[in-house]
């Protein structure tokens, strides 16, 4: 049976341009396997009405949210698409929110009030280290690569059938490996950004949290 993955991908400023880039690559990789169907709510489609409609009608098992947000809401294309008033639509879903602070109140509410099966998110800002020369072109930004790899690893682990806990463990292990690679061994670091990349990876490692059932499987 085909399973569905819902992606929200707003695009309206520099942070969302980076997330839009990551999620676009992710979409291509998932679709290239051909096993699962991606519902792509990008740009002007990343609005509350379309988000709720997709949740209700298609009932995706995995929901991956990209964009701005806060401890109690997720923002799509310049409007709130998820908050306490529609968290009930996450029932029985695995949610990964690449959104600042969403693992705080919203993550807990998704489980307790919305009956989501699992919620993965960050309890502070999600950060990326950018190349000062290439920050307008995420595709060409080499500093962005480790952050992109980490995000893709988590989603692809979930999609490949690993449990939520295993996916998180694998991803965190990969983050530690990257921190090591950008430190002790040294890498090509023309502009001296590697120490800040290590710090950024550690920031995300520290803030990546889950709520709900760690044994949940896509």
């Amino acid at each position, binding site marked *: 049976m085909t399973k569905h993955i819902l992606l929200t991908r707003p695009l309206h*400023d*520099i*942070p969302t341009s*980076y*997330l839009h880039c990551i999620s676009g690559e992710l979409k291509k990789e998932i679709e290239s396997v051909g096993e699962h169907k991606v519902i792509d709510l990008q740009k002007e489609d990343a609005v509350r009405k379309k988000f709720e409609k997709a949740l209700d009608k298609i009932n995706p098992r995995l929901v991956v949210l990209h964009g*701005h947000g806060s401890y109690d809401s997720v923002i799509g294309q310049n409007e709130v698409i998820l908050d306490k008033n529609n968290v009930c639509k996450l029932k029985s879903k695995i949610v990964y929110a*690449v*959104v*600042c*602070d969403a693992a705080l109140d919203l993550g807990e509410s998704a489980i307790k009030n919305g009956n989501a099966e699992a919620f993965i998110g960050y309890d*502070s*800002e*999600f*950060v*990326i*280290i*950018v*190349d*000062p020369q290439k*920050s307008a072109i995420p595709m060409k930004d080499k500093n962005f690569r480790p952050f992109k790899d980490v995000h893709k690893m988590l989603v692809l682990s979930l999609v490949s059938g690993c449990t939520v806990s295993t996916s998180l463990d694998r991803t965190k292990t990969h983050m*530690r490996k990257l*921190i*090591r690679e950008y*430190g*002790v061994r040294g890498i090509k670091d023309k*502009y*001296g*950004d590697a*120490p*800040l990349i290590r*710090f*950024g990876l*550690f*920031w995300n*490692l*520290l803030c990546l949290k889950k709520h709900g059932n760690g044994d949940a499987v896509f």
Partner: protein
Amino acid sequence: MPYSNEEKILIIARLETLNKDSKILLMGEKKPITVREMIEEVKRDSELGRKIVRIQMSYLKALASGGIDL
């Protein structure tokens, strides 16, 4: 979590060793900030500055304890 003035001085000293033009993009902000601006945030004890100190201290503790396998 509160931190001491010594910890704040330590973190500023660490940040001073980085490339001042390197940029971090926090998803809650509209544009990236430089290491130079991070140092200013720490110096004036802003919310972001306090967060930077807290996470940098956790980072140092993880390094010291082997928590990130270095």
